């Protein structure tokens, strides 16, 4: 049994800007490009947009990110829905969810959901762009973190990964199989930043960042923006581009409690979010054709696969070929655009944008033939927050 809202709403427009080391523009500019592209993709006019939801990336924490003033910058004068949302990597799916309920109940007709970020500076490293945000001099017990030498999200996720790896006997070579697999998909993705093929040897030769993570275990940092426009299925049907119908939605937020009573590292919010979304969509893990999973790190993908019930705990790596660089190797239909590891890092909009492309069948050389059920995840904090979207090319 599915929920009556299944297939009643859709993503009708998608705008993906140029991605990566694109300099000379701020986050508002990228947001403007993404909504222009999305409106054009949907075959709408600017004045049709009556809802705006925004999620700034790391620039939001630096004070230069997009927020409510984006309305004025874009000259959106017909808004009936407006908000700045942030549950980190889970936000993109949460924006689409909020938009879906709003259009379904008549609060708005076309809601633009935008993620935009521009942390990269010419001549600066990706590490400086992200690690720098945490260097504002914490006080109290938090000040012990830099005193011990803890810096950045890489460290937090590496800690979670280590626990998972030791518990299930997962090796660095296993993480490398995820990295190489995704790069093979990125080679065929014109939006992707990293399109040079990779081998496992390349993976092992990439420098350590925070062991167990090599450089090639870590996502990119990108300048760019993605806009998705959400409307009702009825409206979407008659627009210019094929709709990606929203079948299932869910959230699960375990938080992060540093205490013996809460396991960290081997669980995520996907378990709860996935169950909710599967129920709404009336599908289960066996029905999933394509996964677009939040992949801030290789490890996150394995964890997520298991929490959505697509493999038993510790067994997700079994879905990957021993040597994914082998042209004969059959790749799992997971992160089919290269993901955040190889294509672009737009927080939760990376998986959703590729999910829309796959549901529409517009993936070109990387298109997966069977695309009826596309499962997209968003993950924030260190596995603290989680959002799920299930998309389909079919209204029913």
């Amino acid at each position, binding site marked *: 049994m599915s929920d009556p809202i299944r297939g009643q709403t859709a993503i009708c427009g998608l705008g993906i800007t140029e991605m990566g080391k694109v300099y000379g523009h701020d986050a508002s500019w990228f947001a403007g490009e993404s909504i222009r592209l999305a409106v054009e993709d949907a075959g709408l006019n600017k004045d049709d947009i009556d809802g705006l939801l925004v999620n700034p990336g790391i620039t939001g924490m630096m004070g230069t990110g997009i927020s409510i003033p984006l309305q004025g910058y874009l000259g959106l004068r017909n808004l009936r829905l407006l908000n700045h949302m942030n549950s980190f990597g889970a936000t993109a799916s949460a924006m689409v969810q909020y938009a879906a309920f709003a259009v379904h109940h008549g609060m708005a007709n076309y809601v633009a959901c935008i993620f935009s970020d521009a942390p990269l500076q010419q001549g600066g490293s990706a*590490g400086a762009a992200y*690690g720098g945000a945490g*260097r504002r*001099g*914490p*006080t*109290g*017990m*938090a*000040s*012990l*973190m*830099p*005193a*011990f*030498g*803890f*810096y*950045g999200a*890489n*460290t937090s996720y*590496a*800690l*979670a990964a*280590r*626990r998972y790896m*030791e*518990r299930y006997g997962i090796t660095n070579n296993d993480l490398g199989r995820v990295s190489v697999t995704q790069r093979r998909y990125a080679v065929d993705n014109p939006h992707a930043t990293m399109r040079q093929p990779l081998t496992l040897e390349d993976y092992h030769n990439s*420098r*350590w*960042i*925070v*062991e*167990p993570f090599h450089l090639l275990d870590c996502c990119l940092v990108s300048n760019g923006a993605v806009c998705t426009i959400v409307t009702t299925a009825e409206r979407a049907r008659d627009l210019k581009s094929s709709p990606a119908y929203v079948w299932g939605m869910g959230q699960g937020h375990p938080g992060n*409690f*540093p*205490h*013996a*009573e809460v396991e*960290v*590292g081997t669980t995520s919010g996907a378990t709860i979010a996935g169950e909710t979304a599967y129920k709404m969509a009336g599908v289960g893990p066996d029905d999933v054709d394509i996964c677009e999973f939040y992949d801030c790190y290789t490890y996150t993908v394995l964890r997520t696969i298991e929490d959505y019930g697509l493999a038993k705990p510790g067994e997700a790596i079994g879905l990957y070929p021993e040597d994914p660089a082998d042209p004969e190797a059959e790749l799992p239909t997971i992160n089919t655009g290269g993901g955040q590891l190889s294509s672009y890092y737009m927080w939760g909009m990376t998986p959703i944008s590729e999910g829309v492309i796959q549901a529409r069948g517009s993936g070109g050389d990387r298109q997966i033939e069977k695309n009826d059920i596309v499962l997209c995840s968003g993950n924030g904090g260190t596995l603290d927050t989680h959002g799920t979207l299930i998309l389909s090319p079919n209204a029913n």
Partner: protein
Amino acid sequence: MAYDKPLPSPDENTQPFFDGLKDHKLLLQYFPSADHYQYPYSDRCYKDWSTDWEWRESAGNGEVYTWVRMHQLYHPSWKAEIPYTLAVVQLDEGPRMHTNLVNVPVEEVHVGLRVKVAFDDVTDEFTLPKFEPA
């Protein structure tokens, strides 16, 4: 050479904790109504929302919950140490602490390793609660 790594920055609420470290005591917040030890500092118990608590000294024993080797240089003062071992230690009282592991070769570090607190008087003013094998 003078100690050049980042130093703690106690605030009003956590000053007793840092004073305790200086006396080689690891203090934890104890909330009696939920029989709950909590770390890091909060003015409220997340279990039952009680605001009634006291400092209690931890026995300083626990086990490695997880660990990593830091290779990336985020702050120049760590240059000579890289790679260094960072860990999350689960104290026997329940809370988990981020810390440094010391006096142990990296080959011997693993999840579940029993450890005890090792106070490191890094300056006259500050002591850091590091951990070493028990």
